[in-house]
């Protein structure tokens, strides 16, 4: 089986995503974890690009890297008591949770390999972004409004919880 250039790109991006993800959970320094998390988010955004979901790739970079990763870096620096590597980062159940995670991965891969998934993608319509916009104001208008209210409530609540008293 010959490997096409697209598959090479996919393998490189997967190695980037999973390697950065592993460093996020294994790094002893919390600040380094936050920086590896940015690398992992970037790899996921590139995978979205490979899946021809351009809008999602840009939204991933804007929201995850631009907003969530920045928030996490701020929270890391505001609670800096534990980021200096003096303490053990893992708790008493880290061994058993590693075993659980590896067993779950084995189970998922076992189940995945028993199904014959499509190997060739169907052609993509030209104007996906317009279709997403139409879907938001027609079929998914109620969930869209609920999510916007949820975001507003969450942000007001976050300000109320975190402000000085």
């Amino acid at each position, binding site marked *: 089986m010959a490997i*096409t250039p*697209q*598959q090479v790109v*996919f393998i490189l991006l997967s190695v980037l*995503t999973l390697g950065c*993800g*592993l460093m*996020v*959970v294994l790094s002893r320094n*919390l600040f380094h974890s*936050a920086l590896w*998390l940015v690398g*992992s*988010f970037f790899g996921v955004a590139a*995978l*979205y690009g490979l*899946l*021809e*979901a351009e809008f*999602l790739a840009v939204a*991933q970079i804007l*929201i995850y890297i631009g*907003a*969530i990763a920045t928030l*996490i870096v*701020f*929270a890391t620096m505001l609670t800096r*008591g*534990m980021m200096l590597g003096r*303490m053990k*980062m*893992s*708790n*008493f*159940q880290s061994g058993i*949770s*590693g075993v*659980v995670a590896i067993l*779950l*991965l084995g189970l*998922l*891969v076992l189940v*995945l390999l028993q199904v014959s998934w*499509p*190997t060739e*993608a169907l*052609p*993509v*319509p030209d104007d*996906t972004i317009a*279709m*997403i916009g139409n879907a*938001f104001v027609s079929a998914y208008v109620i969930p869209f409004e609920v*999510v916007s209210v*949820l*975001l507003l409530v969450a942000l007001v609540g*976050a*300000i109320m*919880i*975190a402000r000085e008293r």
Partner: protein
Amino acid sequence: MVPLSWYLIVAAALFCIGLYGALSRRNAVAVLMGIELILNAININLIAFNRYITPEEVSGQVFSIFVLAVAAAEAAVGLALIIGIYRTRDSVNLEELDLLKG
């Protein structure tokens, strides 16, 4: 063309990495990072299924945008809680937060 199963395996691996991070860390911020990895893995699955099975509809991408919005709300509230706890207890070590334990 990349087979769909490759995407699913990468997403499963990312999910398990995030699960390990969420279960094994003792710092609350690190647990939140694990949860973000899990949500990213779910989004990869949604978009890959959308691309390979029904590309003429965009329901997978719409759902992953909802996941993105909920993840943003979750990160904001979670980090606000962590900062509030740090202010009152001077620690974000989850093993020391046993106020509700009988």
